[in-house]
């Protein structure tokens, strides 16, 4: 079955009611734009049979409609995906009063299965749209004999709308593994597609996605070269331990990443201003707590000692300065 047909089938699937408010890649329309690109077609026919000679690098019709539309759709999909995952996981890792209300509700209605199903739907949603974007860009390059599509793919990564590199995908994987580990049962089948090995070097989370796509996500912090502890994903998508991220942003642990200056750069991609919108990866932290108890305890003790040292320094300095001694 061609991907176009598979994508259409997916869009009309019965489970799509979960994602009725979410945008999708308008695969058909974009394909039409490419097929009806007359200037390219005439150029293609005028070229010799050797396709490598056909170099139509600029096409105003495509460049206007195609890329702006695709960028708009991609950012809409990424936004929708992250907000839906955030909402889904917020219910799972709720604390305090909210947790109490949810546990009461749990007595009357078991919605854990529905949550797992929605999680799977979100994964499929991200995957199908990511494949659609890649396919359409490949087709663009093929028709125009250019590398603009490949460059646009890099642009999507730079704009953080590349779905398969989203930290929320790691969170969803961790959510599945945590659901499997809990006593609710019945999720063995769904989470058999996910595995996580903290004993190998580097530690990886493996996601077996639909359409035989295998994603291996590295869970090593690039600063301490250890398995991430109390992980935070910066807005550029890179994962670090909280203490490592705070150190690289030159802020105290008790101040948190929000206190980082806008000039602070990501230690991997050197992008500026990525700390203020950092996301705490709660599901991944929970998974680590369950799977590597000894390591987690050891790191927790270290972080507490660090926090104590830094707190003394921080408040001591402020007190001395305030008193003027």
């Amino acid at each position: 079955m061609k991907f176009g047909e598979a994508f259409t089938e997916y869009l009309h699937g019965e489970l799509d009611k979960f994602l009725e408010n979410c945008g999708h890649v308008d695969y058909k329309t974009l394909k039409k734009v490419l097929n009806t690109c007359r200037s390219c077609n005439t150029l293609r026919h005028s070229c010799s049979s050797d396709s490598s000679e056909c170099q139509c690098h600029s096409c105003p019709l495509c460049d206007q409609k195609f890329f702006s539309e695709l960028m708009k759709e991609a950012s809409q999909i990424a936004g929708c995906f992250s907000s839906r995952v955030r909402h889904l996981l917020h219910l799972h890792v709720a604390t305090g009063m909210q947790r109490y209300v949810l546990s009461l509700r749990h007595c009357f209605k078991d919605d854990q299965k529905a949550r797992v199903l929605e999680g799977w739907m979100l994964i499929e949603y991200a995957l199908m749209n990511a494949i659609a974007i890649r396919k359409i860009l490949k087709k663009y390059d093929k028709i125009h004999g250019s590398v603009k599509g490949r460059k646009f793919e890099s642009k999507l990564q730079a704009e953080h709308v590349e779905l398969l590199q989203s930290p929320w995908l790691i969170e969803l994987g961790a959510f599945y593994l945590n659901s499997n580990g809990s006593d609710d049962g019945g999720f063995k089948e769904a989470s058999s597609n996910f595995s996580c090995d903290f004993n190998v070097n580097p530690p990886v989370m493996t996601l077996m996605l639909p359409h035989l796509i295998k994603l291996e996500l590295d869970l090593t912090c690039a600063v301490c070269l250890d398995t991430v502890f109390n992980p935070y994903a910066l807005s550029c998508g890179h994962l670090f331990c909280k203490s490592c991220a705070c150190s690289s942003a030159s802020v105290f642990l008790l101040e948190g990443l929000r206190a980082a200056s806008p000039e602070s750069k990501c230690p991997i991609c050197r992008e500026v201003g990525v700390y203020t919108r950092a996301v705490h990866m709660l599901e991944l932290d929970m998974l680590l707590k369950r799977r590597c108890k000894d390591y987690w305890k050891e790191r927790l003790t270290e972080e507490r000692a660090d926090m104590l040292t830094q707190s003394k320094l921080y408040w001591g300095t402020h007190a001395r300065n305030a008193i003027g001694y």
Partner: protein
Amino acid sequence: MAPCSSWSNLPRELIDRIFRRPMDSKDLARCTLVCTNWRNIIVDIWGKKLSLLRPAFKNPSRRILREYEKFQMDPPKGCKARLVESLFHWGAIMIGPQNSLYAGGVFLLNIHFSKKYPFEPPEITFQTKVYHPNIGQDGCLCLERSWCAAMSISNIIRVIYALFSNPDHEDPLDFEIAHIYRTQRIRYEQKARTWTKKYATARQNSAIDWSQFLMDHKILEPQE
């Protein structure tokens, strides 16, 4: 008094004069509490020296140990590293890359890690004399601009290998050599080859015995 924004352009001595006396870190820290502008100015001028404004870094020995283990398991081609005195001081050896002016040369390096590693780059110096625009006369390498905490020694060694093959004359450490590289390429190449033959030999003095490594790379003949 001059507006805050132009303060950062004033020389240090003048600011000391404005405040009537040289300022120690306690005074500076007190000044940072006045307002955001003052804090920014003080961080701009004295930030690096002012430890009070920065949190203490974690002990880097764990990270260095990890890196050392990784380096031993998967070293860059034609390179090896060993500990000299402590975890914070490594000795390394590099074989000049093939098809370059430094081919067959044996280059010894000293690697020193500071207590602020990996947020400060390691200090890498060539023990062997090298004729190269990106290596200083004292053998030092400038990593400040390109360094980030996610980089490792393996990355740096690979960067050095790349520089051996393609020197970056746009951003040199030794301007004289860079000028020769730009204007008299043949002379540069001759001199680089001469220095490699003269200094980058297998019989250099070193705190570490590299003979086994050199034999493995067929640079030293096995002794009968």
